[in-house]
C-alpha cells in the first residue's frame, strides 16, 4: 500500500517535473530576446530539476541515497542562480539591450 502511494506520488512528480523541463525548452525557443529566454531557462533550472530530484528521492532504495540526492539538489539550488546571473551579467555588460514593454521595443535603459 505504502509502495503504491510512493509510486503514484513519484510518478506525478516525474510527470510535472518533465513538463516543466519541456515548458522551459519551449519558452527558450519562443521568447523574443536574450533576457526573456533566460527566464524560460529558469523554469528548467528550478521546477524541472527540483521536482525530478524529489521524485527520485521517493524511489531511492535507502536513506543514504536520499541524503545524496538532497545534497545534489541543494548544491544545484545554490549554483544555478550563480550561472544564470553570470550569463545575464555578461550579456548586460556586453551591451545587449533588452526588449522592453508590451510592444517589445528595443530601448536604452535609463
Amino acid at each position, binding site marked *: 500500500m505504502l509502495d503504491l502511494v510512493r509510486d503514484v506520488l513519484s510518478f506525478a512528480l516525474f510527470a510535472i517535473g518533465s513538463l*516543466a523541463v519541456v*515548458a*522551459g525548452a*519551449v*519558452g527558450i525557443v*519562443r*521568447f*523574443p*530576446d536574450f*533576457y*526573456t529566454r*533566460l*527566464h*524560460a531557462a*529558469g*523554469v528548467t*533550472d*528550478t*521546477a524541472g530539476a*527540483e521536482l525530478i530530484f524529489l521524485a527520485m528521492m521517493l524511489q531511492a532504495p535507502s536513506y*543514504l541515497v536520499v*541524503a*545524496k540526492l538532497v*545534497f545534489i539538489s541543494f548544491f544545484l*539550488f*545554490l549554483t*544555478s*542562480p*550563480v550561472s*544564470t*546571473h553570470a550569463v*545575464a*551579467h555578461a*550579456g*548586460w*555588460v556586453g551591451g545587449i539591450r*533588452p*526588449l*522592453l*514593454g*508590451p510592444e*517589445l521595443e528595443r530601448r536604452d*535603459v*535609463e
Partner: protein
Amino acid sequence: MARTLILGIALAGLWLLLSGYFDKPLLLVFGVVSVAMSMFLAARAGVLDSEGVPNVLMPKVFGYWGWLALEIGKANVIVVREALAIRPNLSPTVFKVTTPTRTNAGYATFCNSVTLTPGTVTIDLEPDYFVVHALTEALADVAAINDMGRRVAALENPAARGAGGQSGGVGE
C-alpha cells in the same frame, strides 16, 4: 573559532553521508584526516571568514528556503503559462532594487533568490542597489521583491549588520 567548528561539523557530516561508512574504523580515520586537512588548508588559505563559511544567516535560513521554494513554485506557474500561451503577453521591464541587507552573505542570498525565482533575473550589481530584469508586469512586483529583501535582512545576525539596517526599495 565557532566558524572553524561549524566548518568541521559540516565537512564531517558531508563526508559521512556521501561515503556511507559508519562502521569501518580505518576508513573513518581517513575521513577524520581528510576533514582535518581540509580545515587546515581553509585556515591557511584565509577563507575562514564570513564569506568562506557564511554562518551569519545560518539557523534561520532554512525557514527562509522553505518560503522561497513556495515563491519559486508560484513564479514557475506564471512563466510556464506565458511559455505555453498561444499569444504570450510579455512585457519585460528593467528596474532597480535597493537592498536592505548589510552583509555580503545576505546580499548574495537576496540577489540569488531573485535570480532563482523564474521571471526575474539580476543582471547587474552595484554596492547599494541591483538591476533586475522581469518578464511581465505581474512578475516585476517591486513590493514583493522588497519583502523578500526584508526577509533576508531579518536573517542576518544583528551583530554583523552594523548601523542603519532599514531601507525601502525604489523601482522605476
